[in-house]
């Protein structure tokens, strides 16, 4: 059973002075996320990532369509007991200390009084805030607030996590720790749904990703399929660039006496023959893989109709 099911979810905002103008923030789309998956939600600024997550959290209401989390409709308050949510640019009651805030949230989540204090220490440590537990949130830096946000999201040990740009504001070490945290959550069998602009992180962490552009879903797929073989090989050799080689090359880059060229896979044999004839020593030969970045750019830059969407 999918953990998150989005069925034709659509969101239109009424804007303007008299709420007459309509802004299609999200066109109807369908998507399923399965148990134990780390799912990346990608797309440029204004694509509709935050809107989708807010719809799923019940903070704004869909204009059409529906969604279910763990089999319960998103309007059902029971579902919230199993969710953890990190909003974009989180902001908290700044008169509280980190520990007081987490205590409040623990009570709201219905956690039992017994294990609360221990669990709070545990999550504070996990996000690297154990030294600032008694500091008022007013005095926290942006990245520290982001860490508090993470702490409150995992506090009650939820089954599904929604993280809106969890990496934003974190220092390099913090990002690394967050990657580890997401991997740990996955190992615990949690489902993690997160939006991000950092494609390298998405590539390293996600089982599957979806690409959203201007409110439309452009593609969904397993990361290993999307970044598969590109059908090209990269050759590096020493010396010059022979004339016979030029028609084959898709890309060239010369630095010092090293020449780097990319040729179609089919032309690999011919290119090597040319190098042998010119007695230019081959340094390396590697198949080129598409990066998630290339896939992302293709989906978000082309004006072509979105590719067939499968969940």
């Amino acid at each position, binding site marked *: 059973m999918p953990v998150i099911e989005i069925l034709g979810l659509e969101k239109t*905002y009424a804007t303007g002075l008299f709420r007459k103008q309509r802004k299609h923030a999200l066109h109807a789309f369908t998507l399923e996320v399965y148990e134990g998956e780390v799912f990346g939600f990608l797309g440029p600024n204004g694509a509709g990532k935050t809107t989708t997550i*807010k719809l799923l*959290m*019940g*903070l*704004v*209401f869909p204009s059409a369509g529906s969604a279910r989390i763990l089999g319960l409709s998103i309007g059902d*308050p*029971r579902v*919230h*007991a199993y*969710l953890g*949510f990190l*909003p974009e640019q*989180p*902001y*908290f*009651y700044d*008169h509280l200390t980190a520990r007081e805030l987490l205590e*409040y*949230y623990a*009570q*709201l*989540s*219905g956690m039992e009084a017994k294990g609360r204090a221990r669990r709070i220490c545990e999550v504070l440590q996990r996000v690297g805030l154990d030294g600032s537990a008694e500091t008022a949130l007013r005095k926290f830096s942006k990245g520290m607030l982001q860490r508090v*946000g993470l702490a*409150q999201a995992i506090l*009650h040990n939820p089954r599904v996590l929604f993280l809106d740009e969890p990496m934003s504001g974190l220092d390099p070490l913090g990002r690394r720790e967050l990657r580890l945290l997401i991997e740990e959550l996955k190992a615990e069998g949690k489902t993690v749904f997160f939006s991000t602009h950092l494609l390298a992180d998405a590539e390293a962490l996600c089982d599957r990703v979806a690409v959203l552009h201007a409110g439309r879903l452009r593609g969904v797929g397993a990361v290993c399929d999307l970044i598969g073989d590109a059908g090209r090989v990269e050759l590096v050799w020493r010396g010059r660039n022979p004339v016979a080689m030029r028609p084959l090359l898709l890309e060239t880059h010369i630095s010092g006496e090293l020449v780097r060229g990319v040729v179609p896979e089919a032309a690999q044999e011919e290119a090597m023959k040319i190098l042998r004839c010119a007695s230019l020593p081959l340094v390396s030969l590697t198949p080129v893989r598409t990066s998630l970045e290339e896939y992302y750019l293709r989906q978000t830059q082309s004006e072509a109709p979105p590719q067939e969407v499968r969940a």
Partner: protein
Amino acid sequence: MTVLTIARSTFREAARDRVLYSPAVFAVLMTGAAILVGQVSIGIERQVVINLGLAAVTFFGVIVAILVGTGLVAKEIQKRTLYTVLSRPVERWQFVAGKFVGLAGTLAINGGLMGLGLLAALRYVSPGFSGADAWVLVAVYFILLQLLMVCGLALLFSTFSSPLLAGVFSFALFVLGNFAQELRDVAQSGAGWVHRLMVGATYLMPNFSAFNVAAGVAHGESIASLLILHNSIYAVTYTGMVLCAAVLAFEWRELQ
């Protein structure tokens, strides 16, 4: 349970906001006024202190009710602190109810302390306990009931408008509430649908005319127990209806 958790945190926030220190300001003011009055007037000290005191309780109370009422709720919407609250197993009505209970508690303690300050000032100008002091406390209780209604209105407005607008609206209704009876009489004196509409409007706004007992109390008059009952029932009913409206408005509200 959830409601109480929210109420407690609301109270704590108000306390850390130093809103609860306004009674201290009030006490200093009252003592100063009492000493001053004690020196210049003969015989009417009590009247002056009671009138002044009740006016001050109302003034400070309304300010706290509106600041806290709009500040806490509309601010939570504006600053998005609500996102991480409403994504937990907290229903929207529980949030509104919790906020209200916390605010009401804040106002009650605030008003109670000011009432005690007023009694202390009275003791200073007329030593010895007087039975009429009890009526002063009832007058303070009536003010508290008014504050409860204003606080409910502030909560209602803050579910659909900005903190500033919500404050302006609630203050306007507080002022109108003091003239509700006069407005209703004027409206009822005419006929036609405009007048009927106006009469309807005066029933929507709070009617504080029966709550202002300062003048009588200052002259040492007593307050009928029926009036106490009537005012209590009216305030509870009115506040309950306003809160229902606030819950409905909040259920529909999108948190953008």
